[in-house]
C-alpha cells in the first residue's frame, strides 16, 4: 500500500485544489503552491479547465491576464521542454491562479486555443506562436505578431542564436486574406480597404490598421503590430538583473519610472529584500507623477487627433515640469533608469519635497484649464461621447485593465486589489464610469490625475527627511562608494555584483503593479544565475490594442482615430 504524501498548501492553493478536484479534469491536473496557486495540466485538458475556471461559481476567474511560453531546454528539473503559462484573475473574488500547460512533444509543441473561452487569449497565443513556435489548433488567426513575416525561426527558444538578422522587404508584408478580395454586393457601392498607418500621426508610434470601409463606416478591421519590436525578452535573458532596468525604461517610455518599479519589485520579491520606507515612498511619489505624465500625454495627444491643439500644450507643460523633477533626481528626463534592485540609484536631491510641493501647486491649475476648454465643449462631446463603446462584459472578456476597464464600470485597480508599497494606507478613490465610451475614458483619466496628486500629497507628508533609501543587503545593492574605495570587503561585494550580477534564488514569480494603462506584470523565472532565465512582460496596452479591431467596427474612420487615442497605446510596450 502506498501512502500519498500530502504537502501542505497555502489556504488559497488549498481552495484551488478543492475546486480542481470537483472539475471535469479532476485527477489529471495537479495543484502546486508557488507564489500563486499553480495548476499543472496537459494540453488536451486545458480548454476544459479554462472553461471550468471561468464559469464555476467557486472559481470565476473571469479576467485573462497573461499567457506566455517557456522553453525549459537549459533548465533542470522540469517535466517537459515547452510549457505555456497562463495567469487568470477573478474580479469577484480578487484571487489569482497560474496554469502551466505542459507540452509533451518537443518537436511540434501544440496546445488547443482558449480563444472561445477567453477572447483576450487571441493575441497572447499569437505571440507564443511567433516567439516559441507553438501551434494553437482552433485559433482564428494564427500568424506572426511581433516578428515580421519574413522572419525565420522562433527567437525565444533557447537554441535560437541571438544576433541573427532577417531581411524584410515590402513584398513580404502579410495582408489579411479578406483585405485582398473585393466585396461587391448588389445594389450597393463596392467597399474598399484602406491602410491606416503604420506611420501615421494618429497612431502614436507605429501601428498598422487595415480597415474595410463601407462608405465611412468600418465593417472589418485588423491591427498589425510589431514595427517597434526589439526583442526585450530575449535581451533580458542575456543580461544581469540590474542591467535590464535601462531596457524597461523603453517599454512604456511615457512613464518610464513605473516600468522600472514594477520590474524591480518582482526581483525584490524573489530575493526577499526589503527597501526602506524612504526609498519606497520616493518610488511611490515618482510613480504617481509618472502616471500623471502618462495621462497628460494620452489626453493631450488624443485631443490633438480630434483637433484641439491648445490642451496639448498645457498638458505637456505639466509633463515638462515633472521631467525637471525626474532629471534632478536621476539625471535623465525620459529614460530615467532611476530604480535599482533594492532601492534607487542615488538619493533624492535635497530640495525633493519642495520641488514636489511646487508641482502639486502647478499641475491642478493646468488640468483645470484643460477641463474648462474640453469637458463641456460641444465638439469634443460629439466626437467622444458614444464612440468607441466598450461594455463591461466586453472589457472583461478582452482582458482590459486600468482606465479602460474602469471607464466600463469595473472598479478594479491593482493599487486597491493587490496593495503594494503604501497604497492601502493612503486615502484615495477609484474613478469609474458606467458609459464605456471615449468620453468616459477621458473623464476617468482626468480624475485619476487628481487622485494621484492626492496620493502624492499624503506620501510627502510622511516622507522622512533623512534615512536610508536602499536596502543594506550588499549581496543586492552596491555598497557606498567611499567604502568601495577603501575597504576590501566592500570592494569584493562591489566586484561580485558588477561582474556576476545579483544571485536570485531559482524559482518563478509573477508580480504586478498598476501601470498607467492598467496592470503591468512581470513574470520572471530564475535558475540561480545573475540574470533571468525568462522574463515576460505583461504590457497593459497589449490586450487593449488586441480589442481595437473589434471596437472600431460600425464606427467611422474618425471615430477610430479618437478611440485609438483613448486606448493610449504606447508602441514601446506593445511591441517590446
Amino acid at each position, binding site marked *: 500500500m502506498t501512502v500519498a504524501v500530502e504537502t501542505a498548501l497555502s489556504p488559497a492553493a488549498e481552495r484551488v485544489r478543492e475546486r480542481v478536484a470537483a472539475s471535469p479534469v479532476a485527477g489529471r491536473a495537479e495543484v502546486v503552491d508557488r507564489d500563486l496557486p499553480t495548476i499543472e495540466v496537459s494540453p488536451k485538458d486545458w480548454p476544459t479547465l479554462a472553461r471550468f475556471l471561468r464559469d464555476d461559481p467557486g472559481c470565476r476567474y473571469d479576467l485573462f491576464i497573461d499567457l506566455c511560453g517557456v522553453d525549459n531546454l537549459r533548465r533542470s528539473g522540469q517535466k517537459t521542454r515547452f510549457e505555456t503559462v497562463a495567469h487568470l484573475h477573478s474580479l469577484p473574488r480578487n484571487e489569482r491562479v497560474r496554469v502551466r500547460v505542459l507540452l509533451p512533444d518537443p518537436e511540434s509543441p501544440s496546445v488547443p486555443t482558449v480563444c472561445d473561452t477567453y477572447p483576450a487569449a487571441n493575441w497572447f497565443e499569437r505571440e507564443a506562436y511567433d516567439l516559441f513556435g507553438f501551434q494553437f489548433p482552433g485559433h482564428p488567426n494564427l500568424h506572426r505578431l511581433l516578428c515580421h513575416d519574413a522572419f525565420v525561426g522562433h527567437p525565444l527558444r533557447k537554441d535560437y542564436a541571438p544576433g541573427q538578422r532577417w531581411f524584410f522587404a515590402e513584398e513580404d508584408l502579410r495582408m489579411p486574406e479578406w483585405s485582398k478580395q473585393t466585396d461587391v454586393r448588389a445594389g450597393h457601392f463596392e467597399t474598399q480597404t484602406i491602410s491606416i498607418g503604420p506611420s501615421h500621426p494618429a497612431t502614436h508610434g507605429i501601428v498598422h490598421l487595415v480597415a474595410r470601409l463601407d462608405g465611412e463606416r468600418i465593417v472589418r478591421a485588423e491591427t498589425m503590430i510589431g514595427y517597434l519590436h526589439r526583442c526585450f525578452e530575449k535581451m533580458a535573458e542575456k543580461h544581469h538583473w540590474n542591467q535590464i532596468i535601462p531596457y524597461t525604461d523603453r517599454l512604456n517610455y511615457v512613464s518610464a519610472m513605473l516600468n522600472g518599479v514594477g520590474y524591480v519589485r518582482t526581483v525584490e520579491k524573489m530575493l526577499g529584500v526589503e527597501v526602506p520606507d524612504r526609498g519606497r515612498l520616493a518610488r511611490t511619489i515618482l510613480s504617481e507623477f509618472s502616471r500623471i505624465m502618462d495621462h497628460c500625454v494620452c489626453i493631450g495627444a488624443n485631443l490633438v487627433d480630434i483637433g484641439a491643439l491648445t490642451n496639448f500644450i498645457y498638458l505637456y507643460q505639466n509633463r515638462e515640469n515633472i521631467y525637471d523633477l525626474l532629471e534632478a533626481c536621476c*539625471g535623465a528626463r525620459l529614460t530615467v533608469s532611476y530604480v535599482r534592485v533594492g532601492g534607487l540609484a542615488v538619493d533624492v536631491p535635497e530640495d525633493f519635497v519642495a520641488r514636489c510641493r511646487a508641482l502639486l501647486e502647478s499641475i491642478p491649475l493646468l488640468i483645470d484649464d484643460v477641463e474648462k476648454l474640453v469637458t463641456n465643449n460641444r465638439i469634443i462631446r460629439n466626437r467622444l461621447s458614444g464612440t468607441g463603446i466598450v461594455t463591461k462584459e466586453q472589457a472583461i472578456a478582452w482582458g482590459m485593465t486600468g482606465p479602460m476597464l474602469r471607464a466600463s464600470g469595473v472598479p478594479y485597480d491593482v493599487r486597491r486589489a493587490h496593495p503594494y508599497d503604501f497604497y492601502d494606507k493612503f*486615502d484615495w478613490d477609484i474613478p469609474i464610469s458606467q458609459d464605456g465610451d471615449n468620453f468616459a475614458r477621458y473623464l476617468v483619466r482626468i480624475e485619476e490625475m487628481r487622485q494621484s496628486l492626492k496620493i502624492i500629497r499624503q506620501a510627502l507628508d510622511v516622507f522622512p527627511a533623512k534615512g536610508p533609501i536602499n536596502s543594506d543587503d550588499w549581496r543586492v545593492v552596491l555598497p557606498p562608494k567611499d567604502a568601495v574605495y577603501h575597504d576590501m570587503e566592500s570592494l569584493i561585494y562591489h566586484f561580485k555584483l558588477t561582474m556576476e550580477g545579483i544571485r536570485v534564488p531559482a524559482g518563478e514569480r509573477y508580480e504586478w503593479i498598476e501601470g498607467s494603462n492598467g496592470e503591468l506584470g512581470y513574470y520572471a523565472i530564475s535558475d540561480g544565475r545573475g540574470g533571468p532565465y525568462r522574463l515576460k512582460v505583461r504590457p497593459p496596452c497589449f490586450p487593449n490594442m488586441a480589442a481595437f479591431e473589434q471596437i472600431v467596427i460600425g464606427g467611422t474612420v474618425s471615430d477610430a482615430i479618437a478611440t485609438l487615442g483613448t486606448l493610449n497605446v504606447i508602441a514601446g510596450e506593445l511591441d517590446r
Partner: protein
Amino acid sequence: MSGVIDVGRRVPKQLTLLQKLYLPEIARGMAVTLRHLLRNLANPKGMPTIQYPEEKRNYSDRFRGKHILTTREDGTMKCVACYMCQQACPAECISIVAGEHPKIAYEKYPVVFDIDMMRCVFCGFCVDACPKDAIWMTRNYEMAFFTRADAVYSIDRLRETREEVAKHGYGYRPYYPGDGTTPPSDASLLPVLAGSGERDRLRERSIPLPERDPGPGPLNAPSQAEKAFSA
C-alpha cells in the same frame, strides 16, 4: 483606502442650452487662452518655451551626458583598466585594452578606452561600477556626428579637460555637493584595506544603519517597515 467615485454621473450627460449654443463656450475658452497669453506677455521670462540653441536648459548636476575619464593630480588617468564598466554596460558600448603602467604604483592603465556614443544609452551604470572614481559624466549633451566612426570616442576625447568641465560642468558622479560626503582626493592612489567591513566604518562616522532583520521571513509577510508605518 477609500471608495469609488462615478465620474460619469458627476458630469451631466446633456449639455445645457447655453453650452449647446457654442458661442458662450467659445468665449469661455478664449478667456482661458487669453489669460495664458497675457500672463506670458507680462512675464516673458516665465514662459516655458526655451529658445534653443540660443538659450539652453539648465540641467541639474546629476545630468547624464558625455563621459569623462578623470585624472590624477599628475595628469595621468585614474582608470586602471579593470573592465568593470565594460562588464556593467547594458549596451555593450565600452571597449578597453589594458596595458602595464611604467609607474609601478599605478599597475595598469587603459591603452584603448573607446565608448561608442551611438550605442550608449547614458544610463550611468559605468559610473556606478567604477571602483576607482575614474569615470564621471558631464552635462554635455551636444554630440552630433557625421559618420559612425566619429561616434566612437577614444581616450583623447574622453580624457577630462579643464575647458570641457568649465563649459558644461560635471554631471552624474558618485559624489554631489551637499550630500554629506566628499570625493576622495585621489581614490586610485589610496590603498584598499582589509577590514571588518564598511558597516563599522559607517558607524564610526555616525552614519545610521538600520539593523538587519533576524532572518528572511516568508515573502509576503509584512515587513518591519510596514509594521512601523501602520503603528
